[in-house]
């Protein structure tokens, strides 16, 4: 009995080792992984729908009394936003007329809107599952944004679901640029010790480049993954590092704990031609 258990364990570990070897050596998406993404994405979507429905019902029961005043406030807000939209459209038309700028060239023309239906089951990774896949036009390495900034990139694609690696993941990297001092670096997640507790660290910044706390950090486009100009976060700390480098901490622009809806952009194939 005990010998049988030990043999079974060895067989399991051996098969998993083969699986891991194949995956680490193969650079492209494995068909079995695509199938898993589709199947478990469906399961997560179903379960998330149940959770949200139950939560919505519970919330509705609690907040019946507040509904009317909230509705009035929302109507006023919608009216204000509509007015701001009208003004912005006018400004956009004016800018287009002046510069002849083609917004499609920035790769921001037709993003795929997606909802987050699940989070990573492993404490080691930072990934989320989206309810959009290859059949909706999502492809591997496509940048993912929220209205407030960059979220990450698509790492696995199924036909109807996809998985996104967040920029706060240790394996993620974003070629970035500070908006005012124009300092280049590479943003990495999971580097809190060096970045003084921040979620992201801007690596390879040397002393004397003038990076200041509060500066906006945007993507530089040099990594050929993310288009230039996407908001990533703000510099939260600048600390003395080792040698001629400084440790720069960056707080992400996106609140990942409250993220529900994102936009998947077309994948980048070349760096932005407008690099300064």
């Amino acid at each position: 009995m005990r010998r049988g258990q030990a043999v079974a364990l060895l067989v399991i570990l051996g098969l998993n080792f083969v699986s891991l070897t194949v995956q680490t050596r193969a650079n492209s998406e494995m068909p079995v992984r695509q199938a898993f993404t589709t199947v478990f994405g469906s399961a997560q979507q179903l379960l998330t729908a149940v959770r949200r429905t139950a939560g919505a019902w519970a919330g509705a029961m609690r907040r019946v009394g507040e509904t009317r005043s909230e509705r009035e406030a929302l109507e006023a807000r919608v009216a204000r936003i509509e007015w701001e939209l009208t003004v912005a459209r006018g400004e956009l038309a004016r800018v287009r007329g002046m510069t002849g700028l083609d917004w499609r060239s920035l790769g921001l023309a037709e993003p795929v809107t997606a909802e987050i239906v699940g989070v990573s089951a492993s404490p080691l990774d930072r990934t989320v599952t989206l309810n959009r896949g290859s059949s909706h036009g999502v492809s591997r390495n496509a940048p993912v944004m929220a209205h407030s900034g960059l979220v990450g990139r698509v790492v696995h694609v199924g036909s109807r679901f996809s998985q996104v690696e967040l920029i706060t993941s240790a394996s993620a990297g974003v070629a970035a640029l500070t908006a005012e001092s124009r300092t280049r670096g590479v943003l990495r997640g999971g580097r809190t010790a060096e970045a003084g507790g921040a979620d992201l660290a801007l690596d390879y910044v040397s002393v004397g480049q003038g990076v200041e706390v509060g500066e906006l950090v945007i993507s530089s486009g040099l990594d050929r993954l993310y288009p230039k100009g996407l908001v990533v976060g703000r510099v939260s700390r600048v600390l003395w590092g080792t040698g001629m480098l400084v440790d720069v901490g960056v707080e992400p622009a996106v609140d990942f704990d409250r993220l529900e809806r994102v936009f998947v952009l077309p994948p980048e194939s070349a760096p932005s031609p407008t690099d300064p």
Partner: protein
Amino acid sequence: MNLPAPESRFRRALRVAILLVAAFLLQTLVRPAPWIERVAPDFILAAVAGLAMRRGASLGLGLGLGAGLLQDSFSGGLLGIHGSSKPLTAFVIGRIAAQARELSGSLAFVLALVAAGLDAAVLLFLAWVTGAEVTARPLAVGLGLPLTAFAGWAAARWLAPPAASTV
């Protein structure tokens, strides 16, 4: 004379199914508060450890493999990372628990803590071997171990046989 109350095979299987489903729901759906996410408890490991303690190494091995592969599928990592660590942990915990005359609450907690530590060590080793980056922060893993152990203790308690009846 004290005898454990009889429990049908169906009810025993139902308890296991409820435990595993609850663990997956907690792990994949509950979007916890930021401070909870940063201490990273592993509910699936807790369920597997509880199973191995109460139902033996064989069942722990099989269900650990299934749960581990599911966990890999629900995450963005490599297929086989959790698929290796969970059955190995279940095997070790099931073997140790089989040596004990009685699985007390404190022993269950200690075994769950050992399971959490062993699982974390195996995961870090596999990440090192495969060259995968590890996002979890050391402090989060350190604080997550006792939380996982507490969940494992609860899982073992959930799977415990019904209270003894006096004949």
